[in-house]
C-alpha cells in the first residue's frame, strides 16, 4: 500500500474499488502514523480512533455490499479543534475548554461523514483561532513539516501541517483573517477560504462571527474542490449560510483559463514584501499569463487601512463571543464564594495571553465613549475595503497576490511583538473583510527550501473560477501528481 501521503481522495476511491486496500487499513495506518510522530510534530490535540474505525467499517461494508460509495469514501481527514465532533473533545487549544466534549456535530462534519470521510483526529491551532503562528496553543506548538524549527503558520497550523506532513490527504480548518491561507502557504499545501456564508458555521466555535469561515486543506486543487463541494450549502442551523446553489466544483474543474483577466494590485507588492517571495509570486503570475490569462495592474486603495479595521472588528466580536466562557457551563471553574469573583478568576486562569489581549482591546473599542470612534469607524472602513474589491471585480475575473510577506519564520521569532504579528496578515485580511473567496496554492520554494503560496481572490460565489485558476496553475507547475509529491 502507498503511504497515505502519496494518495489523493481520487486515488483512495480507485484503490478501494480495486481492492488494493480497505478503508479500515487506511484508517489504522493514518492514526498509527500520525500518533507515532505527534510528540515531534505537535499536529494533533486528540485522536478519534474509535470513530475513525467505525466510519471506515461502514465504508468497507458498503463496498462489500456493492453500494455506491460517497465522494469522500474512506478518505482519512483531520479536523481543526475549533469544529465540533459529537462526543469527542473540542478544546479550541484552550485551557478554558480543556475537557469539553462536543454535544453535537458541526454541519460540515456531518457532511463529510455522510460522504464517507474518516475523521482521524482533531488538530492543534492557536487558542480560539487567534494567532498567525500556532504558538498561541495552550498545549504545545506545531512544527512546520518543511522545517521543524519553523512555525506552520496559523491559526489552522495543525490542519495545514497534517496535510503538508502527509498524515492525511485532506483536513478542515477555519479562516477569520487568513487562518487557512497563510498556514497553507507556509506548509506548501492548497488552502481555501470560501465566500463568507458558503459553508455553514454551525458547530464552528465562534471567534469573530462576521468573519469566520470553515474551509478545506488538500495537496491538490481537485481534492480541495471535492471537499469544498461536500461542505458547502445552506443550513437551517446557520442563517448566514448562503442559499445560492452549490456547483460541482470538482466535476466542473477546468484547466482552460484562457482570456481570464487577472488583477494585480499595486498595494500588495510594495514595502514589507520579501524580495524572494515577491519574485516567486511574480513568476507565478507569468505562468498564468503563459496559460492565456491577461494580467492587468489594478489599485485597491484602502488596503493599508485593512489591518486597523480588521483588528478592531475581530476583537470586538471576540470579546462578545468569549463572554460565554464564564466558569458556569464549560470545563473547570475557580472555586470562589462570590459569583463575580468566580467569573473573573475562572476566566483569568483559563485564557492565555493573546486571548486576554484581544478581549481587552475588543471590550475597549465597544465601551461607552469609544464605540463610534473605533468600532463604527472600523465598520465604515470595512465598507470601503469591500467597495475596492467590488469595483475591481467589475473589470477582472480574479486577483493575484502574495499570501504572506515572508515564508515560515522560526518558532519564537515574532512572539514578543503582537502588533508586528498582526501586520503580517496584511494580504489575507482584506479579502476576509470583504467576504469574498480566496485560496493559497503552492508557487515554489525559497532558496532555503521554504514553501511560498500564491493567493487567488475571486468575487462572492466565484469559487469555480478561482479553483480553475489554481488547477491550471498547478498543472503548469508539473501537474497534480508532482504537486502531491512535492508537498511533503
Amino acid at each position, binding site marked *: 500500500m502507498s503511504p497515505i501521503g502519496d494518495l489523493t481522495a481520487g486515488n483512495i476511491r480507485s484503490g478501494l474499488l480495486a481492492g488494493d486496500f480497505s478503508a479500515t487499513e487506511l484508517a489504522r495506518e493514518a492514526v498509527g502514523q500520525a500518533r507515532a510522530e505527534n510528540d515531534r510534530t505537535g499536529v494533533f490535540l486528540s485522536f478519534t480512533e474509535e470513530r475513525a474505525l467505525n466510519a471506515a467499517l461502514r465504508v468497507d461494508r458498503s463496498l462489500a455490499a456493492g453500494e455506491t460509495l460517497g465522494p469522500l469514501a474512506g478518505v482519512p481527514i483531520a479536523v481543526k479543534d475549533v469544529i465540533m465532533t459529537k462526543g469527542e473533545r473540542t478544546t479550541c487549544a484552550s485551557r478554558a475548554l480543556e475537557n469539553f*466534549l462536543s*454535544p*453535537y456535530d458541526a454541519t460540515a462534519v456531518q457532511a463529510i461523514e455522510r460522504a464517507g470521510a474518516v475523521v482521524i483526529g482533531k488538530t492543534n491551532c492557536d487558542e480560539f483561532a487567534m494567532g498567525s503562528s500556532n504558538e498561541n496553543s495552550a498545549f504545545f506548538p506545531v512544527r512546520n513539516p518543511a522545517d521543524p524549527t519553523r512555525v506552520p503558520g496559523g491559526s489552522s497550523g495543525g490542519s495545514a501541517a497534517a496535510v503538508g506532513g502527509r498524515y492525511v490527504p485532506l483536513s478542515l480548518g477555519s479562516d477569520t483573517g487568513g487562518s487557512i491561507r497563510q498556514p497553507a502557504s507556509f506548509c506548501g499545501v492548497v488552502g481555501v477560504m470560501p*465566500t*463568507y*456564508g458558503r459553508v455553514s458555521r454551525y458547530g464552528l466555535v465562534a471567534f469573530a462571527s*462576521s468573519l469566520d469561515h470553515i474551509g478545506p486543506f488538500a495537496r491538490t486543487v481537485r481534492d480541495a474542490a471535492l471537499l469544498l463541494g461536500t461542505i458547502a450549502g*445552506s443550513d*437551517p442551523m446557520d*442563517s*448566514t449560510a*448562503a*442559499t*445560492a446553489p452549490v456547483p460541482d466544483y470538482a466535476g466542473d474543474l477546468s484547466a482552460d483559463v484562457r482570456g481570464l483577466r487577472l488583477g494585480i494590485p499595486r498595494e500588495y507588492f510594495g514595502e514589507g514584501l520579501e524580495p524572494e517571495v515577491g519574485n516567486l509570486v511574480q513568476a507565478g503570475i507569468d505562468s498564468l499569463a503563459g496559460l492565456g490569462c491577461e494580467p492587468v495592474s489594478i489599485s485597491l486603495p*484602502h488596503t*493599508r*487601512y485593512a*489591518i*486597523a479595521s480588521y*483588528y478592531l472588528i475581530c476583537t470586538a466580536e471576540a*470579546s462578545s463571543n468569549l*463572554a460565554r466562557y464564564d466558569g458556569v*457551563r*464549560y*470545563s*473547570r*471553574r475557580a472555586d470562589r*464564594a*462570590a*459569583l463575580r*469573583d*468566580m*467569573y*473573573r478568576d475562572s*476566566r*483569568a486562569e483559563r*485564557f492565555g*495571553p493573546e486571548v*486576554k489581549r484581544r*478581549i*481587552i*482591546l475588543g*471590550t475597549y473599542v465597544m*465601551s461607552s465613549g469609544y464605540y463610534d470612534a*473605533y468600532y463604527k*469607524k*472600523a*465598520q*465604515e*472602513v*470595512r*465598507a*470601503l475595503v*469591500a467597495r475596492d474589491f467590488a469595483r475591481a471585480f467589475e473589470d477582472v475575473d480574479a486577483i493575484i497576490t502574495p499570501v504572506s510577506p515572508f515564508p515560515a519564520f522560526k518558532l519564537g521569532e515574532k512572539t514578543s511583538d*503582537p*502588533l508586528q504579528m*498582526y501586520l503580517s496578515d496584511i494580504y489575507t485580511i482584506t479579502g476576509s*473583510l*470583504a*467576504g469574498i473567496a480566496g485560496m493559497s496554492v503552492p508557487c515554489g520554494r525559497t532558496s532555503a527550501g521554504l514553501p511560498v503560496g500564491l493567493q487567488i481572490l475571486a468575487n462572492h460565489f466565484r469559487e469555480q473560477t478561482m479553483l480553475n485558476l489554481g488547477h491550471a496553475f498547478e498543472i503548469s507547475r508539473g501537474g497534480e501528481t508532482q504537486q502531491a509529491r512535492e508537498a511533503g
Partner: protein
Amino acid sequence: MKITPDEVRHIAALANLRLSEEDTALYARDLEQILAYVDQLNELDTTGVEPMAQVLHEGNAAPLRADAPGASFDQGTALRCAPLQGAGHFKVPRVIER
C-alpha cells in the same frame, strides 16, 4: 493616547477578567501601541459611508427558517461539561446575600 493601568482595570472589570499587576501594565502598553496604530483610520473621511456589520449576499436580511419546534439535545448532554450541577441545573455560587 496614553492608556493608564486604571483604564485597563476598568476594561478588565467590564470583561469579567481578573488581571495581575504585571498583566495590567503589559496590556496598557499593548493597548496604547495598537490604538496608536489604528488611529490612521481617522485619515479617511467616512461621511455617508454605511457601516458594514455583516456580509449579506441575499438582501438586507439573513434567511429565516420556519419557526417550528424540532429535536434538540437533552438536558444531560447540555449539563455534561458543567463544573457544578444539580437537579438538572447549572449551579453557581450564591448571588444574593441574605
